[in-house]
């Protein structure tokens, strides 16, 4: 059942972009749109949009990089561990929960490391990989998306992102404990 579902989604993912290309260009040609000229006109904005993101992303990644290099996450983990082990999160999984919204490459590395040490099919292995799959790198998304349109006053975006992350992590801990705890 899962295998069937998985191969169906895999096919969908492979076919999606070719299908969009075919549909967009085909439909536009049918509608007599000057496809090449319009494409180039739109693509021109790609460079300026990307370049606009640079200051925002530098600010974000440098601050997160400094915090991680200082050993701050280890300190926070030690402080929070009594609370999180009470809700069924192993202390080894706590740095993963904190790193996930901050750094994509960092949490990927941590997940790989934890699975090497504890085994991918252990409770911890299943839990950290579920955590990785349960969220996006919130601060990266914030910096890139808001940066591209020059938003500096983010209003409730950060609390909303963090609430989503915390909810996702807690749900991951809950469902994995429910299904895999022996």
């Amino acid at each position, binding site marked *: 059942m899962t295998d069937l579902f998985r191969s169906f*989604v895999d096919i969908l993912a492979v076919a999606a972009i070719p299908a969009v290309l075919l549909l967009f260009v085909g439909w536009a040609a049918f509608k007599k749109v000057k496809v090449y000229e319009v494409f180039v006109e739109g693509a021109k904005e790609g460079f300026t949009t990307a370049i606009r993101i640079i200051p925002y992303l530098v600010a974000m990644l440098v601050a997160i990089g400094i915090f*991680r290099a200082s050993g701050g996450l280890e300190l926070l983990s030690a402080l929070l561990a009594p609370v999180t082990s009470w809700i069924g999160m192993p202390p080894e999984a706590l740095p993963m929960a904190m790193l996930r919204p901050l750094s994509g490459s960092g949490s990927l590395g941590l997940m790989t490391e934890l*699975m090497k040490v504890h085994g991918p099919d252990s409770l911890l292995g299943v839990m950290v990989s579920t955590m990785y799959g349960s*969220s996006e790198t919130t601060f990266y998304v914030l910096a890139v998306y808001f940066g591209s349109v020059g*938003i500096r006053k983010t*209003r409730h975006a950060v*609390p909303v992102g963090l609430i989503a992350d915390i909810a996702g992590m807690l749900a991951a801990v809950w469902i994995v404990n429910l299904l895999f705890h022996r």
Partner: protein
Amino acid sequence: MLNKIWIFLILAGVLIAAGNDIADEARNTYRNGIPLTAAIAVEHPPSVLTPTWQGEMSIPSALFAAFYGVPESGDVKETVTITTAPSGVSVMTIPVNESSPPQWKLMAQRSSSRDHLTATIDRIQWSGGASNGSVRFIVDPIRFVKLKAVTAAAIDWAAIAVNVVLGLVGVMALWLGLMRIAEEAGMLALLTRFLRPVTRFLFPDVPADHPAIAAIIMNTAANMLGLSNAATPLGLKAMEELNKLNPRAGTATNAMVTFLAINTGGFVIIPATAIAVRAAAGSVNPGIIIGTSIVGAGVATVAGIVASRLLQRLPMYRKEKEERHD
């Protein structure tokens, strides 16, 4: 909020780094300046004419553990290279690899070298035909590990940020071009029609047939299929369109925050990266996390949407939306 988080990350980062380094110094974690004695064995006894020679160094497990105050990890055996300078000072190079004790691996990683440690030799004594002896050495001091790491992180991540953005330029151009074609052909309006009840509910401030809605739908679809290369440019296109409806440049709108909540929830049908890592780590059933991830990300997305709808009404965020300056 982002301001406060930024201040916290930088100040806490630097202060914690300094605190860790001071604690290391007070405990002398790396035993800087304290000599350690090891047994050494050579095939041919070195003479004055051979300034560089190799020998087998060994330290009993208990002695090593007691010296560094770490748990025992087996006897230490390394093939060391000893070089005597014309001035008479001898330097020993200790290779550090997989089989080295964890403490030395840590120290090598934290010194600038990575794959070896260097030590200054204090004294060598030979006994029994000059092929067995003992060597007393002081490993070169390792200091300010975290502060150096902070400096390196600041510089490295600044460069990484620019590389990430440059990597985006190509796909950005591709998708913005394709979206413009779709717009001209009137396809985006068609796309928005099917999901109108959902998008009306999620984005009440955005006209239902606005190009922003089409970009949001395509971004979400790409995210769900795990096509992150396409998702980011489409998401940025959506932000650009949402910003056209923004009465106050530089301040986020409710629709933008709801859109980001959906994005940071990270709802993916197949978490391909996590599955690939699991398979590489030798999992019996790498795909077992599909179901649990759908639950986790689903809860995150719903919580994000609900939070964005509730928090946008709070006085502090309402005020920021309405006040007008600049």
